[in-house]
């Protein structure tokens, strides 16, 4: 399969993620959209890695190392993020991010 397909799929996933982050007000949805963006990038990295491997580059597997890093970072981020959301919910009985306006001043 040509690499362009993967690129278009990634762009689509990424844009869905961006739009989700920008438009939704539910913190958990925003969170999921962030994950979507990260995974769009992961998909792209793996696709490029495969492309270079097919072209005969020995060091093409390097890109996949990034993928692992991103997964680890995403897992850590989920842990911290969900904890924050839980605390916000406990304080305000809501996960609407406009509640966060109160952080000003």
């Amino acid at each position, binding site marked *: 399969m040509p690499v362009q397909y993967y690129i278009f799929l990634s762009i689509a996933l990424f844009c869905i993620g961006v739009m989700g982050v*920008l438009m939704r007000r539910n913190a958990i949805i925003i969170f999921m959209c962030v994950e979507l963006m990260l995974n769009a990038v992961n998909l792209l990295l793996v696709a490029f890695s495969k492309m270079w491997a097919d072209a005969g580059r020995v060091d093409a597997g390097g890109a996949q190392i990034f993928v692992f890093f991103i997964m680890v970072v995403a897992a850590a981020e989920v842990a911290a993020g969900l904890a924050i959301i839980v605390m916000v919910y406990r304080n305000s009985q809501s996960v609407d991010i406009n509640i*966060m*306006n109160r952080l*000003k001043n």
Partner: protein
Amino acid sequence: MIHLVWLVPFLPLLGFLVNGLGRRYLSKSLAGIVGSGAVLAAFVISLLIFLEVKTPGFQAQVVPLFDFISAGSLHIPFAFQVDQLSALFLLIITGVGSLIHIYSTSYMHDESSEGFARYFAYLNLFVFSMLILVLGANYVMMFIGWEGVGLCSYLLIGFWFKNTNYNNAAKKAFVMNRIGDLGFLLGIFTMIVHFGSVSFPEVFERAAALGEGSKVIPVIAILLFVGAAGKSAQLPLYTWLPDAMAGPTPVSALIHAATMVTAGIYMIARSNILYTLAPSIQTIVAVIGLATAVLAATIALKQDDIKKVLAYSTVSQLGYMFLALGVGAYTTAVFHVMTHAFFKALLFLGSGSVIHAMGGEQNINKMGGLKKYMPVTHVTFLIGCLAIAGIPGLSGFFSKDEILAETFISNKLMYAIALITALMTAFYMFRLYYITFCGKFRGTHEQEHHLHESPAAITIPLIILAVLSVVGGYIGLPEVLGHSVLKEYLAPVFAPSAPFVHAHEHLSHNTEWLLMGLSSLLVIITIFFARSWYRNYEDNGEPRTGIAKVLENKWYVDELYDAIIVKPLMMLSRFFEEAIEKSGIDRLVNGVGRGVHWGSQQVRLLQSGQVGFYIFAMVIGMVVLFVIGFLLK
């Protein structure tokens, strides 16, 4: 003994440290003993060194201590050079220095015990620096001592620092000296560039190799002379010395008469070959020396402050020494340094004794008739006056007459002017003597009641110096009278420049007798003039008019400097302060601060607290970056 030469400057340094650090704990007598003892011990060692050096055929020895500066091909060791010239200066500095230290123990007794120890610490530091100056084996070490004595001079002129005038005098001395020091420093740099060395033997050897007609040597010579003019108070940098009389009188005697101000003469005598190879600069030295001698002597004619008269007399005598250097009579200049150290220290210490007895009064119009109250001071002061005036048989006569004779050989007009200066010297010294010691007392009754002879610590140094002022001249007898021991002793120091001196005509014995007789006769006549005018001096209190007023105001030189240098400089500084500093730099700096403050206030509005807006801004930002990156490609 020579290898122990480092002890000579080390002992005063030790004294400085002990007195300086322990000034709160030391009693007055202990501080005095430490201060005087250090210099006295240095004198004893100097004497032993001198005895070794004075044996015929002694070769100059360099005693290295450690490497001071080592950069590339330039090596400057911290080394002492012991030769005939430095050994002689060692004796003068430590000898006169110890007498003045002893004198000070009594003169400064009214100080608090902390001030007393501070005074001796400064004085010891001065002796240390001066010894480094004359012992240094290269120009950089000489410069270290040179700066050290300048600093001590500043500290001691402003010793009573609560008086603003004294502080101003101290600052004036320091700034004037710095102007000269810059010349000296540039001279050293020129030397490093062209000779690649600053040690005396190497510089002189390379200068001699260049020979006469070189372009470099006159440059170095004139730069060094600028330094000498600053330190030794020559035109146009002499005005600090009379103001330096603000310091305690023993300081005036030691620093501003006997030792520090002769550093310039020492430097030129040391660098004699550079000057012999630059005859044009020699002429400048002679002319400036003579001009200073005349100018200072005229001012001294009409001064009313006992110390100011002596100060201008010092400037004038220093001018004499430079005249001798300028006509190539290096030995004679050093001879005059020595005799001058004796009689001028004597005169200053005598004036200190008078000021002490008068309870701080320095105006000679308020004195008079002190002869019967202070017999020892009177007799020693009279001997000092006779010596400086050049009465035959006393030390001043021999040295001054030799300068006159040497000047006569090189230039008859200069001789005439120098002779007139000598007569003025005799006149103002005896004016001072008669107004102070003869006639009737013109001070208050209370002062008269307190008049007393000074204690032994003051009179004994006076007596020793008086004896030296009488006999000091016999080591440099003129040829007609015998044999100059000093000339023979110093010959090795001035030997390098001997091959370059043009065949020097010698005075016939008849001419020499004639010159001596002429100057002695004229001096004696002048003294009788002064006697008839001032023996029964009455201060009528009328302000002086005409030329006397100009002389009283020192030819208005201070006012002139004020108008052409100080005032424009102040105006320039004020312009820099107002225009450049306040409305330029300050406004720029404050503007940056204000700009950042205003900018932050605007940017702060972006922080609305809407998380969605933040994310939106972030995405837009990223897109913009992408677009920019794309476009730049």
